[in-house]
C-alpha cells in the first residue's frame, strides 16, 4: 500500500508508460487538453497559436486517433472548454479573445468574448448557459453568447491562474495565493475568500465531484484537499508529490475520474499519478517521462487519460531549445485497479 509521500520511479525515455501517441501533435508546448463530454473528440490548445481536434477510436484495448480539424489564433492559446452538447469548442489565450468554434457543424470560429489581458482559464456552465472566463486582467467575465458584452464582470483580488466549476460551486485561484469561492446561484457575490492552504503559488484546481470542496496544486510539488464546510475542516490535508529527491516540481494538472471519484495529478517532473483522497492512498505511480507533463484530461467515461509531454517553462527560457523541443500527446488506458478507490479500512493515519 503506497503512501502519499513516496516518489515515482525515474523514467528517462519519451514514452516510458508505453502509452498511445497521438499523431501530428502541436509544434509547440500544449497548454490545455479537453475531451468532448459527448464523444471521444480531444481538443488541444498550444503555444503555436493553434487549437487542434483529434477523433479517438477505441475498441477494447486498441486505440487509434486521427486529426479532425484545427483553427488558429493570433497568439498562443492558453485554455479551452467544450459546450455540454459536444458541438462547440471555446478557446482563449494571449490574444485576449475567446473564439467559439462550431466544430461538429464545420462552421467558422467567431470571437465571442474579450479581456484586457491574456485569458488564462475558462469554463462553460451548462446550468446557466454562460461561459465564464478568467484573465490576468484580474477579472472573471460571464458571457451569454447572444450578447456582445459580458453579462457580468467580477473583480478578482489578483490575476486569475486557474478556475474550476461544478455547478453551483466555482473556485478561482489567483496570484498571491488567493482562493475565491463562488456559489453560482448568486454569482455576483463571493461566497468565501480564503488564502490557499498551500504555502506556494497556486497552479491548478479541481472541484470535488460532490461539490463539497476542491483540490489545489502548487508549484511546490504539493496538493491540498480542502473542504468548504466548516464542520469538515478536520478532513483537510495536504500531501507531497512530483518530487525527485531534492528537486521539487510543480503540480501542473488535477483531474477527477468521472466514475470513481479518484483523481490524477501530473507534474513538471514528467510523472502522472492516480490517487484516492478518501483512503489517502496513491493508487498508481506511473513512470516518468523525460519532459514535464503540462496538462491532462480524462474522457467522459474515464476509460482514456490523455496527457501532454512537453516543455512547460518550469526551468525558464534558458532550458528551452525550440529547434529540438518536441511536444507529445499520449493516451493512457487506465486499468481499473489504477483508478478505482479502495474501501477505507479503519483509520489509515499513523499517529
Amino acid at each position, binding site marked *: 500500500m503506497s503512501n502519499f509521500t513516496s516518489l515515482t520511479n525515474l523514467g528517462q525515455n519519451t514514452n516510458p508508460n508505453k502509452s498511445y501517441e497521438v499523431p501530428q501533435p502541436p509544434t509547440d508546448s500544449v497548454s490545455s487538453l479537453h475531451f468532448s463530454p459527448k464523444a471521444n473528440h480531444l481538443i488541444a490548445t498550444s503555444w503555436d497559436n493553434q487549437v487542434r481536434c483529434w477523433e479517438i477510436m477505441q475498441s477494447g484495448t486498441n486505440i487509434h486517433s486521427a486529426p479532425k480539424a484545427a483553427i488558429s489564433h493570433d497568439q498562443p492559446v492558453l485554455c479551452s472548454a467544450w459546450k455540454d452538447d459536444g458541438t462547440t469548442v471555446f478557446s482563449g489565450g*494571449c490574444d485576449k479573445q475567446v473564439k467559439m468554434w462550431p466544430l461538429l457543424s464545420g462552421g467558422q470560429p467567431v470571437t465571442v468574448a474579450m479581456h484586457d489581458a491574456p485569458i488564462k482559464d475558462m469554463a462553460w456552465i451548462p446550468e446557466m448557459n454562460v461561459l465564464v472566463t478568467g484573465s490576468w486582467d484580474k477579472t472573471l467575465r460571464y458571457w451569454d453568447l447572444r450578447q456582445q458584452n459580458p453579462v457580468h464582470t467580477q473583480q478578482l483580488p489578483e490575476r486569475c491562474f486557474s478556475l474550476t466549476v461544478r455547478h453551483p460551486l466555482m473556485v478561482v485561484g489567483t496570484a498571491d495565493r488567493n482562493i475565491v469561492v463562488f456559489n453560482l446561484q448568486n454569482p*455576483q457575490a463571493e461566497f468565501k475568500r480564503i488564502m490557499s492552504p498551500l504555502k506556494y*503559488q497556486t497552479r491548478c484546481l479541481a472541484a470535488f465531484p460532490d461539490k463539497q470542496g476542491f483540490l489545489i496544486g502548487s508549484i511546490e510539488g504539493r496538493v491540498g484537499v480542502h473542504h468548504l464546510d466548516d464542520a469538515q*475542516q478536520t478532513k483537510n490535508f495536504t500531501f507531497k508529490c512530483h518530487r525527485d529527491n531534492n*528537486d521539487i*516540481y510543480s503540480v501542473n494538472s488535477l483531474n477527477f475520474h468521472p466514475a470513481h471519484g479518484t483523481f490524477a495529478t501530473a507534474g513538471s517532473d514528467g510523472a502522472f499519478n492516480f490517487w484516492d483522497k478518501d483512503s489517502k492512498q496513491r493508487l498508481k505511480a506511473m513512470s516518468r517521462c523525460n519532459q514535464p507533463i503540462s496538462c491532462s484530461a480524462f474522457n467522459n467515461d474515464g476509460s482514456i487519460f490523455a496527457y501532454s509531454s512537453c516543455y512547460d517553462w518550469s526551468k525558464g527560457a534558458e532550458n528551452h531549445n525550440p529547434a529540438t523541443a518536441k511536444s507529445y500527446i499520449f493516451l493512457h488506458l487506465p486499468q481499473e485497479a489504477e483508478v478505482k478507490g479502495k474501501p477505507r479500512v479503519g483509520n489509515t493515519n499513523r499517529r
Partner: protein
Amino acid sequence: MGKKKKRPVEKVFCYYCDREFDDEKILLQHQKAKHFKCHVCNKKLSTASGMVIHVLQVHKENVTKVPNAKPEREATDIDIYGMQGIPPDVLAAHYGEQEEDTPSKSAKVDVPGTNIVGGMMPGGFAPPGTYGVMQRPMYNPAVPGPHGWQVPRPPAWYPPPPGMSMPPAVSAPQAASVPPQQPLFPVQSIAPPLSSAVAPVSQPPYPPGVHSSPAPIPVSQPLFPVGAAATMANQIMPAGILPDMKASAAAYSSVHPNMVNSYHLPNGPGAANNSHSYASGPNTGGPSIGPPPVIANKAPVNQPAGNEVYLVWEDEAMSMEERRASLPKHQVHDETSQMNSIDAAIDRRISESRLAGRMAF
C-alpha cells in the same frame, strides 16, 4: 484463541523529530530513513554515531548534525536506537505534553488549518429547503423565484460594492422560435446613497459590501448539496445572432480604448518578493512543527547538501505562462497592431478557399 495483546497507552516517538508511531519497528525504520541515512550514498545506518563514522570513513566528510532533526536535538553524540537512549527529561516532557492533549504530528499527511480571509459573504446560499433538484437560477428581481428563494438585493440607499461592476447588457435580436429569456445578471437600478443626515434611524447602516440577505445555511447542512441538476434545454441560436469577429473587436475597442496597454506583466522591480517562508504565522495554516526545510537554489556552504530541497519553478511573483508570455515574440505592442492583426486574420480567412473548420494540419 489467544488473548489480544493490549497496545501500550503511550505510543513510541522519535527523539529527533517528535513524530509518533504505533510500534518500535516502524520507529526504527523511520530513524534509519530520515535521521541515520548517509547524504552521499543514501546508505541507511542504525545509529547517528554509525552514520557519522560511515560518512567519515567512506566519504571523508564530517557530519556534525543529525539530518531532519529539531534544532535542539541535532547532536550526534547521543546514542539513540528507537526509544533507547532518550534522556529522561525529554521522555517526561513528551508524555507530559501528551496528557495536555497536544495534537501529535501526523506521520503521513499534513493537516493544515483554514485561513478564511473574507469569511462567508452575504447571500451565499438559498435557505434550506430550496435545494433538492437544482433549478436554473433566476436573477431578475422582477420575476418571482421559486418559493423561499430570495434574490439578495442591496438596500436602495446603498451603492453596489466595487467588485460588482456590471456593464449594461446589450441584447442581441432574438429569433421568433426562441422564447425571450430573462437576463441572468440584470442591472439593478439602485438609487444614489442617502446622506447620513437623511438616513432613517431605524435602519442600521451596513458595512461596505454587506447586503441584507437570507441567513446562511447551518453548518451541519452540506454547503453544495448534490441534487439531480435539472438540465436545461439548450436554446437554439439562429445563425447571424453572434457578431462577427470584426464587429466584435471594433465594439470592444470602443468600449476599452486602452485595452491593450492596460496589462503589465509583474516582472519589474515592483514585482512581489520571492519569499519561501515556512514559518508559522498568518496564512501558513497553523503553527509549524519542527524546523522548516531549507528551500534554496544553491546549497549553502555550511550545510550538507542532503538536507536541502530546490523548487524547480521558484518565482512566486509570476506563473510559468506569464513569464513565457512576456517574451517579445508574444507581445502585442499597441492597439493599432492588434486591430491590424485581427483585420489580417479576417482577410486571410476570407481569401482561403477551404473552411477554417476543415483545415488540415
